[in-house]
């Protein structure tokens, strides 16, 4: 343990130099870093949201609702298919995760079947072809269509991917820097936006489904007329969207009877911009070719009738069609403020979410708290560091100074390691570094105590040091590995800030083992060679 092979010495110096090189960019300003040559390391510590300020949102995509909607579309398609082929049916509807129908007169020859099939056989054949990825089960006269597990999985994945994409578009359009948008688990999205301290507007934007559709109104129930108790078949009730001012004074909202049939939907939009019309903020939109044609056809056929622009089940406006709109462009006016028109235009441009979303968790930190935390962390680090340095010197004298040099180097290596891994430094992470300062000396303490013991048992300095290092080594490894286990599990389980703590703790354990076992030993051995002592000052 006393002799160092040359390559080992070189390796130790190389690791230290590398650590320093990796750590240095953190001390430089952005301009200085940009001026570094290409080969030089440039990456720095990432500050976590709790240190730089920003917002963390955990969103959940309501995949179940999307799936229910899909089943109900399937029911619609079944009804349509059976009707066009003149097959009698009853009790059609969704049943849990599948759609069911009972065929009337199942054994009678079907009207439209060419090869003499019965109603049931014909219906089964038709429904089998209805949608790919489904399986059809027949029991008696009852037919059940359900999606295969593969299809459900694929579809759910698709819904989540689409949601992520749309969230990304909306966040990007919001104009923030370096947002992180990640999938989490089967149905969640993690959004992290640095620098954004008041995310209410962003949340409002992200959370909106933004499903826009154009419908005709049921003319029998013009606004102001008494409403029926239940919506007539083929129609639904929708309330007028209210401005914030109206909401606050709890003004009654008009209810419209809107026809279910969608004339044109937001999917056909290609552009949408906030603009002004006669001094009032409005949103302009433009359809793609198909949407434009559809819109032209419907408006042509319904001049003089009112229609409704519905956004997420609220009527934004219900104007009367004055003339056919053939150019494929139009304007939505409501009681908007300027920022509302900006948001609406953004939402329409980014597209509708395939499923509703809820915010499960929000954590926002203002930039001033972040700065305060950094300052406090620095002070705590410095004070902790000085205390440990002084204590070690008092306890071990010269050897304490060796340990202290190793500790300094250890800090540099931690910063270098964190920069290399592009790890995120959080407030608990800083605590992790300070804790590591305290614990890092442990390996040296173990060794020094062992050396002391060996000296007391009457060994020569050289052989005491040799035995000290040798015997302490397994203890150090066992002790650090067990702590490392805890740190790894912490990393696996933890979220954001806690992960940062686990990372600094783990890196600190590794670097402290290196500095204690290699660096201080090199120092001790070199010192010992220079002066051939009879007694050890330990």
């Amino acid at each position, binding site marked *: 343990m006393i002799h160092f092979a040359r390559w080992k010495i070189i390796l130790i110096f190389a690791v230290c130099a590398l650590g320093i090189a990796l750590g240095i960019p953190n001390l430089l300003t952005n301009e200085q870093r940009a001026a570094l040559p290409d080969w030089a390391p440039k990456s720095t510590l990432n500050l976590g949201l709790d240190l730089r300020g920003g917002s963390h949102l955990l969103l959940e995509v309501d995949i179940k609702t999307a799936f229910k909607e899909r089943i109900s579309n399937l029911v619609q398609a079944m009804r349509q298919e059976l009707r066009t082929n003149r097959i009698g049916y009853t009790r059609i509807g969704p049943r849990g995760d599948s759609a069911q129908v009972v065929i009337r007169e199942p054994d009678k020859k079907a009207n439209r079947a060419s090869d003499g099939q019965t109603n049931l056989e014909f219906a089964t054949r038709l429904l089998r072809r209805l949608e790919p990825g489904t399986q059809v089960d027949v029991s008696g006269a009852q037919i059940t269509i359900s999606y295969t597990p593969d299809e459900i999985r694929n579809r759910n994945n698709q819904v989540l991917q689409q949601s992520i994409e749309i969230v990304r578009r909306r966040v990007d359009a919001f104009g923030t820097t370096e947002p992180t948008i990640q999938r989490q688990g089967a149905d969640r999205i993690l959004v992290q936006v640095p620098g954004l301290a008041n995310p209410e507007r962003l949340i409002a934007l992200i959370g909106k489904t933004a499903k826009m559709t154009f419908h005709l109104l049921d003319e029998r129930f013009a606004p102001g007329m008494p409403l029926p108790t239940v919506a007539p078949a083929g129609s639904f009730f929708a309330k007028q969207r209210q401005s914030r001012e109206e909401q606050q004074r709890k003004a009654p909202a008009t209810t419209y009877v809107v026809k279910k049939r969608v004339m044109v939907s937001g999917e056909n939009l290609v552009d949408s911009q906030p603009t002004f019309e006669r001094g009032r903020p409005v949103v302009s939109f433009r359809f793609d070719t198909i949407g434009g044609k559809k819109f032209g056809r419907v408006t042509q056929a319904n001049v003089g009738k009112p229609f409704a622009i519905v956004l997420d089940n609220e009527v934004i406006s219900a104007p009367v069609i004055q003339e056919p709109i053939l150019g494929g462009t139009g304007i939505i006016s409501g009681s908007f403020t300027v920022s509302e028109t900006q948001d609406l235009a953004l939402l329409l441009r980014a597209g509708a979410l395939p499923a509703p979303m809820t915010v499960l968790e929000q954590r926002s930190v203002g930039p001033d708290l972040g700065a305060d935390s950094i300052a406090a962390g620095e002070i705590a680090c410095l004070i*902790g560091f000085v205390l440990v340095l002084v204590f070690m010197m008092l306890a071990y004298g010269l050897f304490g100074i060796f340990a202290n040099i190793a500790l300094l180097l250890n800090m540099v290596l931690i910063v270098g390691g964190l920069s290399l891994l592009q790890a995120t430094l959080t407030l608990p992470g800083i605590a992790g570094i300070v804790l590591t300062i305290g614990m890092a000396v442990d390996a040296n303490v173990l060794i020094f105590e062992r050396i002391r013991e060996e000296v007391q048992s009457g060994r020569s300095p050289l052989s005491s040091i040799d035995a000290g290092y040798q015997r302490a080594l397994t203890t150090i490894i066992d002790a650090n590995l*067990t702590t490392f286990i805890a740190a790894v599990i912490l990393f696996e389980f933890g979220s954001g800030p806690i992960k940062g703590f686990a990372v600094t703790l783990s890196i600190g354990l590794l670097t402290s083992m290196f500095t204690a076992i290699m660096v201080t030993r090199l120092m001790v051995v070199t010192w010992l060679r220079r002066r051939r002592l009879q007694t050890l000052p330990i």
Partner: protein
Amino acid sequence: MAAFPIKLIPADTKIDFIGSRKIAYIFSGLLMLVSVGFFAFQGLNFGIDFKGGILIEVRTPGPANIDALRGKLSGLGLGEVALQEFGQATDVLIRIERQPGGEEGQKVAVATVKTALGSDVASYRRTEFVGPKVGGELIEAGILAVVLSLLAIMVYVWFRFEWQFSIGAIVALTHDVISTIGVFSITEHEFNLATVAAILTIAGYSINDTVVVFDRIRENLRKFKAMPIEELLNLSLNQTLSRTLLTSITTLLALLAIFFFGGAVIQDFAFALIWGVVIGTFSSIFVASPVVMMLNIRESISGGTIGGNETSQGTPAE
């Protein structure tokens, strides 16, 4: 160069740790009893991480008038609203219980609070809300993490030492975890995600300490085959005592620096760790080692299952 080491801990202490273990048992037993009792009857002051709810930290233009702020917020019908000065006179931490109406309900309540506070607040330093769903999941994940790491540590110690040591280690760690939870229940410090992280770190620190002692016990068991076990444990504990204390002191120094200077956000975390270092040091001396003794470690080792003569000087490597 003159070197002047001060022996902070005398090198050849002869403290009868094992002889006084009964007192330690009584202390630990009471500690466990009180911890479990408080946990059962008083429970923990869960932070929003676990029970859901809203946490807002605000800075007021001047020194905060907490009563006035409370007055404004209590009229909003948000249920239990707790305010406390946080770190300094201008900073106030507002905690609002979980709102009905699931995730959406929390969001709406935050907006209501911000409207109500209006110009009383200079800046919002932190806004957090956690819905009921996430809270439940975090509790599960926290328990799982603690149990998993205890098991992993136990397996590692079992693998590296005799089984008696791994039982001793797990008993000591469980002791540390339970007493930490107990301290949080007694002092009503907020128990949150960071506390769970602290518990895991405590487990890591405590096992570190314990392993060092175990290492020495094992070494001595092989070296002094005829020594009575009580004497041998005392010898091992005394031999490692100065290391145990030195490391505890440096770690405590660092933690005290975080506690006093690291800012209000991290203070509870530092508090938990400080407690953990103290109890972890205690448990490796007074809990882990006596357990190993009770499990007849001597027979295992001298029975020669692992044996091996390691009293030789060891060949100089390299």
